[in-house]
Each structure stands twice: as C-alpha cells, then as structure tokens.
C-alpha cells in the first residue's frame, strides 16, 4: 500500500510541480500571483480535448497543439492586460485582482464554449501496468514519463540556455539585469510562452490522471499549486518543483491507513496546506526562498 501511495503521490506531485514552476516563473519576473493559472490549465486541457475528441487527432499531437494554444493565449493577454498594467507601474494588488477578474472571465468563457459536462480523452483507461506491488494506469505512466522529461528539460533550460539564465537573472534582480543589457520585454514574452506551455501540459496531465474533467477543474488544482509555489519559496523555479513533488507525495501518503488510520481522501488539499503551514512556521520565506528585506 505504501509503495502504491508513493507512486500515486509521484503522479500527483509531478502535475503540481509542473504547474507550480509556471506560476513561480511568472511571479519571479512580473511579481504577478497569477490567479488565472488554474483556468489556463483548464484551457489547455479543453483545447487538447477538442483536437483529441471531436477532431480525432492523437493525444500527443493534440497535447502539443493545446500547449501552443495556451502559450498564444498567454501572449495575447500580456499585450491586452498585463503590459498596460506594467506601464502604469501597478503593484501586487492590481495584478492580483486583475488576475482574479481574468480567472472569472476565462472560466465562464470556457463554460460557455464547452458546457459544464465532464470530458475525457480518447485513451485506453483499462490498460494497467504492474511493477511489483504497484499498479499504474496508462494515464499515470504517461504522466510520470512526461513529467520527468519536462522537469529534466526545464532544469537544463533554466541552468544552461541563455534565455533560461536571463529569466533567472531577471527574477533575481530586475534592475541589475536590465543594466546588464538584458532585453526585459523579450524575456517577459519568453516567460509567458514557457508558463503557457507548462500550463497546457499540466492541464492535460491532470485531465488524464483524473480521467474526467470540466471547465471548473482548473480552480480545484490551483490551491495545491499555490501551496507548492509558496513552499518552494515564491519566484524560485527549482523550489516550486521540489515543493510540488513533496506536496503531491504528502497528500497521497496522508491517506495511508497505517498513518494514524489515514486521512479521509477528500481532505488531500487540506493536507497540502497543513504541510505548508507547518513549513512556514519554521521558514516563513519558504524552503528555498531567501529571507530578504522588502
């Protein structure tokens, strides 16, 4: 049972981790806590569904198209909403509230377009892989493989590529990075593309793992994602990865019956925040965040 839960936790954690990196990168560079990110994920998942279900394309091609669509949406919204706010030198509060308004609009538009009924991808839900005492569905195996690939690619991208390094430089100290000759607006565009691609893939993976999903499901995923972002130290991409995996595993293991009888599974999101609250008592700046004077 322990190993099964650990595997489940790895699956949940991977999805949370990928989304958390997307949220954290945007925060690091734009100081925007993007409350609409869950709805970006739902957008990616549903666009992928459109290509996969009604149009009958393969799940891989559909996912890529869904990711690209989410990245384009992110860029369009940057031009229409976030750039004017930056031009006004708006603060945390304006950005956060605007993202709440955007989340409302986006979710309702998705509901108008797709309706509230649950959707599922055209994959075989009955194929099961058995590794020792662990049974994983095909969706779970795909999630682990895609997430591992994405995490490695992301790590290499952030640490080795020029764009990735300028992103981290910008997140670290915007003024200094601009003085060093970094083209800030170009890096912002790249960050939106990356965060959009991550939202798309995380949405599809979450949809695969849950088997059915509707336009509301993004918001339900958002709170564990935020918990992971804070746990890792907001704005720190590597921290978000670690935070996501740790929370995913903690959420699943908490239901283990040998662990004080196990927590009722409906409280898994509450466990995520319990872990976060405990961690913040020890390190108010998050596990990987730096304590700094703001």
């Amino acid at each position, binding site marked *: 049972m322990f190993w099964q839960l650990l595997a489940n936790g790895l699956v949940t954690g991977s999805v949370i981790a990928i989304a958390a990196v997307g949220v954290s990168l945007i925060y690091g560079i734009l100081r925007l*806590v993007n409350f609409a990110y869950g709805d970006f994920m739902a957008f990616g998942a549903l666009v992928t569904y459109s290509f996969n279900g009604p149009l009958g394309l393969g799940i891989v091609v559909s996912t890529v198209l869904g990711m690209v669509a989410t990245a384009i949406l992110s860029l369009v919204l940057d031009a229409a*909403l976030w750039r*004017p*706010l930056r031009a006004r030198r*708006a*603060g*945390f*509060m*304006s950005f*956060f*509230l*605007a993202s*709440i*308004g*955007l*989340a*409302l*609009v986006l*979710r*309702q*538009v998705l*509901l*108008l377009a797709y309706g*509230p009924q649950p959707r599922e991808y055209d994959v075989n839900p009955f194929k099961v892989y058995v590794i020792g005492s662990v049974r994983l569905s095909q969706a779970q195996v795909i999630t682990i493989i895609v997430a591992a690939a994405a995490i490695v690619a992301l790590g290499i991208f952030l640490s080795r590529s020029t764009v990735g390094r300028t992103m981290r430089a910008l997140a670290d100290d915007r003024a200094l990075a601009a003085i060093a000759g970094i083209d800030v607006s170009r890096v912002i565009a790249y960050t939106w593309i990356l965060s959009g691609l991550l939202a798309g893939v995380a949405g599809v993976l979450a949809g695969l793992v849950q088997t059915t999903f509707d336009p509301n499901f993004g918001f339900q995923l958002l*709170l564990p994602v*935020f*918990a992971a972002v*804070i746990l890792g130290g*907001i704005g720190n991409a590597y921290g978000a990865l670690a935070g996501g995996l740790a929370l995913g595993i903690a959420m699943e293991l908490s239901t283990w019956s040998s662990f004080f009888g196990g927590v*009722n599974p*409906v*409280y898994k*999101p*509450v466990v995520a*925040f319990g872990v*976060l*609250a405990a961690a*913040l*008592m020890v390190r*108010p*700046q998050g596990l990987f965040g730096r304590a700094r004077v*703001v």
Partner: protein
Amino acid sequence: MSALASGGFWAFVGVVAGIYTIFALGLQVQFGFAGLLNFGQVAFMAIGAYTMAILVVKEGWSTWLAAPLGVVAAAAAGLLLGVPALRLRADYFAIVTIAFSEIVRYVATNEDSLTGGSQGTIALGKVGVAAQYNGQWERFQARVQGWLGVSSKDVAMLVIVWIVATILLALVWLAVRTPWGRVLRAIREDEDAAASLGKNVPAYKLQVLALGSGLAGIAGLFYAWQFSFFSPDDFAPLLTFFAWMIVILGGLGRIWAVPVGAGVFGFLFAGTRFLDFRPLSYLSGADRAYVRLIVIGLVIIGLVLLRPQGILGKRDEMVLE
C-alpha cells in the same frame, strides 16, 4: 423588461446590496485602512451562518442567543487564522487566507454530521425544522412587516438589513476617526514607522482581522435568514471576490463608499438576470449565468486598469497599487 419595473425585484437587489455592504465593510477596514490583503473573507461569513444554524436547528437554542454567538465564532476564527498567518509576507498572507476559506468549505462539505454536508442546512434537522430554523426570525420579520404595513416579506427584510448596515457603517466610520483608526492608517502607509513609534503593529492587525471577521459573520446571519437554506457551495471564494470588487468599485479607504459599491454590485448581480434581449436571449438560462459572471470579471479588470481609486475614492489618499 417588466421584471425590472416590479417592486419585488428592487427589494431583492436592495437586500443583496445590504448583506454585501456588511460583508464588504470588514474588507474596507482591513484593506482600505490597515492594508491587509484578506482574500478569505467568505470563510467568516460561512462560520457565522453555520454556527447560528447548527445551534438553532440541532441544539435547539434561541435564535437571539445563537446569532450573537455566530458573530463571536466568526471573530474568534479571524483571530485563530491571524495569529499564525500575520507573520507571513503580504502576498503569502493573501494566498493563505484563500486557502483557509477553501478549507472551511471542505470541512462544511464533508463533515455531514456537523453541518449537513453537501446537501447543506436542509439536512441538519427534521424536515420542516431546518426550513424555518426555529421560526423566531420569521416571526420577527413578520412583526416588522406588520408594523411597517407592507405587503412583501422582502421589503421588511430590506428595512431590517439596511438599519443594521447603517448602524454598523456609522460605528465603523466613528471608529476609524479615533486615534485607533489613525494608527491603522499609519500601519497601511508604513508599518515600520508605526512600529518604531511604539505601536504594537501585530495587535492592531489582529484587532482589524477580528473586527472584519465579525462583520462577515453578521452578513452570514442575514444570508442564512434571507435564503432559508444554504450549502457549502454558497460560500465559494467567488463571494470574497465580489466583496473586493465592491470595496474597490466604491473607493478605497472610504466607509460610505461601501454601500455605493454594494448597490452597483447588487444591480449588476441581480439585474443581469434580466439580460433577455437579443442577442443574449438566444442563450439558455445557465449560459446567461456565465455571461453575468463574465460581466463582473470584466468590471473588476476594467476598474483595476482604468479607475483604481474607485467611484468615490480620493486619488491622493489611496490608489490601488
């Protein structure tokens, strides 16, 4: 358009606006005066409403005892959340408060034996009991109705809600004019400066959090009475965002701007039910509900972009940053 002309509709808009005035007033004090980013306000509304309903329906208490206790429970929950959460940075605090409100909703949804679960308060007691709580509020409302000589229950509710709201607005208006209120504004402008002058900043923040939570608890009581039943889904984070919209729409840092914002919101919220002209009449009822929330979302975005000081806000005192 006939619905817009009927008195019943306007009474309903007025009741909604009154309940949201009380609800958003707490946020105005917390953010407009003390600069706190509480995004979990709806949790305290839920705690007030549930405490009253559970005590009345399951424990058989008098409404007039259970209602104040509901407000106390909401304020106590605010303190309980504030003690650990106020140590956090402002942006973390915002997220943690949203999470708190979701946790309250999870508990209300899943602890069936305490709250009636996802069915809501209808499942709390025997059939017929939950509907009326214990009848005390209905009798009081009927007496006010008879005393006013009006034909509709909603009009009686309208008068009661707005009398309470006006009293609360006046009390808060007085409170922020005292030295206590000036310290709050000092904290909003520069926390370190206030602390260096010997003000106990965390204590002030806790007081404001408890005050705002108590006000949300009062709003919860009226919510419970107005709608007879409620379920955990009535306390989604959306309600907190509505309250934020009201505070910013009216204007930050101004007490009397809250009812103005709430009035506009009440009309947007209830009035958009009647978006039945073409081309919107082609949409089904459910789809029109989505359009209504799209309108509210666009108003929030539009305010942030175009008029960050709200309708009545003073640009030089406080602008949304």
